[in-house]
């Protein structure tokens, strides 16, 4: 039985009157590439934010490798606003900040590329190593931890070389072309040595050829770094090509789930948005 890397249970996110995500229950198993698709505003990025601790979900829980890492149930004012009493998960409240979730082994990229604009390409990747290093501010300032720092630097250089970014290493991150910026963002996430990688619209703004290269890139890094990948995407050719399974969301709810072939036939999905054959 393959290990269950990620499991969300009745994950719900409500902003005042807006139900962004409702009772989302998904599973991702080790070594898979799972896609989360749906029309704009379906709640996909919100789901990512709940999983990674950016938002505290209104209800539900998230488990990583069997352990519950995020968990909440409606409290205070939300109790009144909450629709559907029977779905409340009465459990302990676990609400970590995103950095803790990253330390557990979940890394993510963002819909709008969030690189550190004033840092160089090399420094962007190096920052990701900061959390792992056994150091305190004094040992870092006085360079007492130089062997570790050196090792971190070497690992980053290797990473950049593999991704074909080594020649840009001393350039400002903001000066890279768009496609390379995306690759840098993914490389930065890889530097945190994650088990699970969450990619939010990695192919956004790419032409078909770039999308093809990205597809190969994702499969390559999955194999090389022994990753499990959950991705949000609108480019259907990328999704259908590399995903093992697909979850489809619409208006915050899960409307379909299965292999790419199954989902393509699903009438509800077609009604929701697959009617448009071209890329979004």
């Amino acid at each position, binding site marked *: 039985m393959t290990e269950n890397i990620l499991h969300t249970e009745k994950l719900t996110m409500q902003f005042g009157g807006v139900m962004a995500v409702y009772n989302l229950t998904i599973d991702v198993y080790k070594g898979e590439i799972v896609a989360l698709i749906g029309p704009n505003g379906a709640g996909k*990025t919100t789901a990512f*934010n709940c999983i990674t601790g*950016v*938002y505290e979900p209104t209800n539900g829980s998230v488990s990583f490798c069997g352990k519950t890492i995020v968990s909440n149930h409606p409290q205070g004012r939300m109790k009144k606003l909450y629709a559907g009493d029977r779905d409340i998960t009465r459990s302990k409240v676990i609400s970590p900040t995103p950095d803790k979730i990253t330390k557990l082994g979940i890394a993510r990229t963002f819909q709008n590329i969030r690189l550190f604009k004033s840092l160089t390409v090399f420094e962007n990747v190096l920052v990701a190593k900061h959390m792992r290093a056994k150091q305190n501010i004094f040992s870092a300032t006085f360079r007492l931890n130089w062997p570790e720092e050196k090792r971190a630097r070497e690992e980053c250089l290797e990473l950049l070389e593999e991704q074909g970014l080594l020649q840009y290493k001393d350039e400002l991150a903001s000066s890279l072309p768009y496609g390379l910026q995306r690759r840098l963002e993914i490389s930065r996430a890889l530097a945190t040595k994650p088990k699970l990688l969450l990619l939010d619209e990695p192919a956004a703004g790419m032409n078909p050829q770039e999308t093809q290269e990205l597809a190969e890139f994702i499969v390559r890094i999955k194999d090389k770094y022994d990753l499990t990948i959950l991705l949000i995407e609108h480019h259907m050719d990328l999704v259908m090509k590399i995903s093992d399974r697909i979850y489809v969301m619409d208006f915050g709810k899960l409307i379909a789930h299965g292999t790419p072939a199954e989902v393509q036939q699903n009438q509800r999905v077609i009604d929701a948005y697959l009617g448009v054959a071209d890329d979004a």
Partner: protein
Amino acid sequence: MLFIDVFLSEAGRSVKNFIDTNLPYILAGISVGGQYALIAIGYTMVYGILRLINFAHGDIFMFAGFAMVYLAAWAPLYVAIPLVLIITVLLGFIVERVAYKPLRSAPRMSVMISAIGVSYLLQNLAWYLTSGLARQYPVIPWISNSVDIGSATTKIVTLITPVLTFVLVVALVMLIKHTKIGMAMRALAKDFETSQLMGIRINTVISITFIIGSFLAAIGSLLYFTNYTSVTPISGAMPGLKAFVAAVFGGIGSIPGAVIGAFIIGICENIIKGLGWTTFSDAFTFALLIIILIARPTGLFGEKSTDKV
């Protein structure tokens, strides 16, 4: 029954005692609260639209005070007062055009630094023009006259201030609710970029915001300096800061909130002085600021907004 009667009459008497001993302070509080309110409205309107803390606003208030000192020595009051209003409004308009408009697309910190720079410039300018000596504010007849209320003696300005503040605030709220310009201001405050796309002439709206704010500050200065008759280059710093705290307390962007916050601050500040803790009357305002920022950052009447990640 009797017990409750006795309790209530005792409570009533101690409240009456409290009011009697502190009446001058409470009255002073209402008066200065109204003056702070007039300044606070300027802060809250500008912040609501531009997300800018106009550090220079308090100094514009101070300049209005000095303008009055010099103009009143040169012309009769019925000429000086309108001139002061016009000059202050002009100053606010110029500050916005010169120091804030060029930085509208710059990061927020740059504009705030510019505001601090303008404040620094205005204070130094005032110091230079007056050689640092405090000036006496001219006596405006009638509102400076004394009147007795209960056991306290105070100036008529103390009574006029809340009334005038109320009238002006009502007029302003009606302007915002029922005119096109007011709607434009509300639109800009809600969503700056989209409002631009909708064809709202932001330069005009922003200038009008500053004009209204400066106008109210000028009126506030007329009332304030009739009470505290000495004007120095730093006369605007503290009232400005306190008015800003009032705006934050009431909910930045909300005009009624700013007014209520200003009255609360004015009254509490003076009661603290009445209790003998004068050194802390200023610190109280800041303690209040910190408490509200921590407990309820959006203020009493503010709205929460979530950022999309």
